[in-house]
């Protein structure tokens, strides 16, 4: 990955090479430290294991938001892919209880939906892109809510008991399995996104943000670039949804509601779009702030969450990742 700048030779490539390598090293070190810290917390405080599993799952979905953010596009409807994955699990678990089959299946269905939806939405940019996504996700929400005989409406569906590679382990082991699965997938998708962003396809996303016409002049089809990113993000949303459903074991249409999509964007901003680590930093920070706020002030946790976001926007536009990397780089230099 450190050879990326070499592929785009420019006058400043040489000094940047060192910086990029150091940045990559920092990112890797932080990832390892972060993963270890999460495992330690999950071991020490059993109840946080659940919260962290959900946070990791949401982090995976937010990785998808991050891809689109690179192209300057904000999707206010990405929760639809999360819900697709989650409802796949809920619907199929009674007949196919195997988690290791449901997981890719949920991802694949979301990917399919992402491709179809993507064909339409990648024609639009900015507010139109965001609003179209929002509209489509609300269509899914309404379907989940109104097809009462199928989906049990707002009360939602209980996810039946799952098996892992044919085994049905006790609760404690199952929680660890879900946590491990989420952590493993988070690492895999994090690395994939990193490699993708460094590739020419990923670099082209930046081109969409700065000036799309130039991209077209270079012979790069912007729509196809964005469609690929969109489908990839849908896949990650679907996988995240399956993880959420398997962990919380109950799905409701609220998963597809616009507030859930907003939450994903919130996490992306909170974490910072500068690195593939950002979504996970953001998701863990978000879930912990929410759970701490709810524990301390059951009446006013929304206010605390809002204040944190305002604080991040006003004082740390690079998000948690921005704060961390600036501080660590400053120390290293």
């Amino acid at each position, binding site marked *: 990955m450190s050879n990326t700048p070499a592929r785009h030779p420019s006058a400043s490539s040489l000094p940047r090479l060192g910086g990029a390598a150091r940045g990559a090293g920092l990112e890797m070190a932080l990832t390892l430290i972060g993963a270890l810290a999460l495992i330690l917390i999950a071991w020490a405080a059993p109840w946080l294991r659940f919260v962290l599993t959900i946070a990791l799952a949401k982090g995976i979905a937010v990785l998808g938001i991050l891809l689109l953010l690179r192209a300057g596009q904000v999707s206010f409807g990405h929760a639809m892919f999360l819900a697709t994955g989650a409802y796949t699990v809920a619907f199929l678990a009674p007949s196919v209880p195997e988690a290791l089959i449901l997981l890719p299946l949920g991802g694949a269905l979301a990917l399919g939906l992402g491709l179809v939806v993507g064909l339409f939405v990648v024609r639009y940019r900015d507010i139109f892109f965001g609003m179209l996504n929002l509209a489509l996700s609300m269509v899914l929400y309404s379907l989940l809510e109104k097809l009462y005989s199928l989906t049990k409406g707002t009360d939602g569906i209980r996810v039946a008991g799952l098996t892992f590679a044919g085994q049905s382990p006790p*609760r404690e082991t199952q929680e660890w399995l879900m946590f491990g699965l989420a952590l493993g997938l988070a690492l895999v998708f994090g690395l994939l996104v990193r490699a993708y962003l460094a590739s020419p396809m990923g670099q082209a996303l930046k081109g969409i943000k700065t000036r799309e016409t130039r991209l077209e002049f270079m012979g790069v089809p912007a729509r196809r670039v964005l469609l690929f990113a969109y489908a990839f993000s849908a896949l990650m949303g679907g996988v995240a949804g399956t993880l959420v459903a398997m962990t*919380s074991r109950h799905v409701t249409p609220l998963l597809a509601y616009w507030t859930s999509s907003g939450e994903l964007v919130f996490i992306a901003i909170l974490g910072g779009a500068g690195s593939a680590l950002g979504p996970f930093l953001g998701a863990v920070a978000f879930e912990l702030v929410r759970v701490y706020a709810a524990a301390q002030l059951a009446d006013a946790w929304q206010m605390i969450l809002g204040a944190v976001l305002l604080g991040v926007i006003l004082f740390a536009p690079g998000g948690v990742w921005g704060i961390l990397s600036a501080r660590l780089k400053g120390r290293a230099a």
Partner: protein
Amino acid sequence: MTQAMTQAGTAAGTEAITRRGAMLGALTSGSLLMAGGNAGAQQKPSELRVGIATFLSGSASVFGVPARQTAELLFDEINKSGGIGGVPVRPYFVDEAPGTEHLVGEYRRLVQNEGVQIIFAAISSGSCLACTPLSDEMRKTTLLWDCGTQRIFEEGSHPYAFRPQGYGGPEVLAPLLYLLKHKPDFRSIAVINQDYAWGRDSWEMWRAAMDAMKPGVRVTAELFPRLGATDYSTEVTRLLASRPDVILSTSWGGDLVTLVRQAAERRLFDRSLFVLPVAEASLQILGRTFPAGHIIGARGDHWNNHPKPKDPARLAKFVESYRAKFNEYPIYPCHHMAQAISAMQAGYARAIAAKGGGWPNDAELAAAFRGLTFDTPTSTITLREDGQGLEDQIVGISHFTERFPFAVPKDMILFPAAMVATPVGQKSVEWMKGLKAEFLAQVPAPIAG
């Protein structure tokens, strides 16, 4: 949190926690990370912690906040009179508004970190459906204090979950029986329910029972405006035009208030008879706007003008102390909270007695709730073998008296819980489909007053 650690059960448990705690202390200063642990807590704890899931924000906080106030009021009273088995009680409130995925996380936090010994969950049926399987897994006695879905005990058995109050089935059937007695000749009906699970479920049950006991009623309109709608002009127009004899609405909260105001303005109440099974909680807000002569329910028997409460002094004391503190009459969620607290007291008393004065563990506590009978200010409630509580239902006709600045029922019929509840092991809709017109003969006579 240090309290949580000192009272953490057996020596081995404490040691493990201290080791973890020490490791974490080095890692972070966050107090919540300390695992509270309740391994083996068999000796009498220093306090009895009760987790309470309720709506503290969002539209359903019209139920959640009064219930929270009730819990605070009654917990204070319990502590003033020596606690439960000599142990003071302490509530831990959590907001169920952010959705089930947050709530199941909070449930785990309450059990694994705060060390609560019993949980009250919840108002929303979705929350209850998500929490009951968790109660099975974590073996924590859970009182379903306000949710109404019939699915809980009809779709599976939950050894640690109990519902110390009625549920959707009787709360729909009782008003229907009242209607069949009060206006047996109605020929058409329209429904306007909120578009979510309760709105759909209640109509499905109503329809099943109505078609079974009085076939041939024409349904002129089935309207499901969205939850939280603020404008019902289209629906009111439809209802005015379709001229049904009866209009059913199981809507609640702000939605019902808005619907009643907009329907009253356009004289819909003059044209059709309304049946409002969840009206009680909105009557104070509506005051004199609410028209007289319509069928109203309270999700139970706890009306302020209950004709013959079991313990009139207790009811009066509860209502007066609530009014004195919060300047309003208690509504049904307050009574449901009070019922859950009564059930908790009775359950602990029974478990402690069964253990000869010792403090019960989780399994012993849950065992004490099975078949438990406890007193409420208005009646007694028995928890059936499946965990469902048998709460009587009182339905009546709205009217105004000197005593209250809002509508209360008259010509009340008290439906015994066992009569209107679906028998154990049967599904509500199926059971209601099999009801016969002769069932009406069992309905008691109205009580004047």
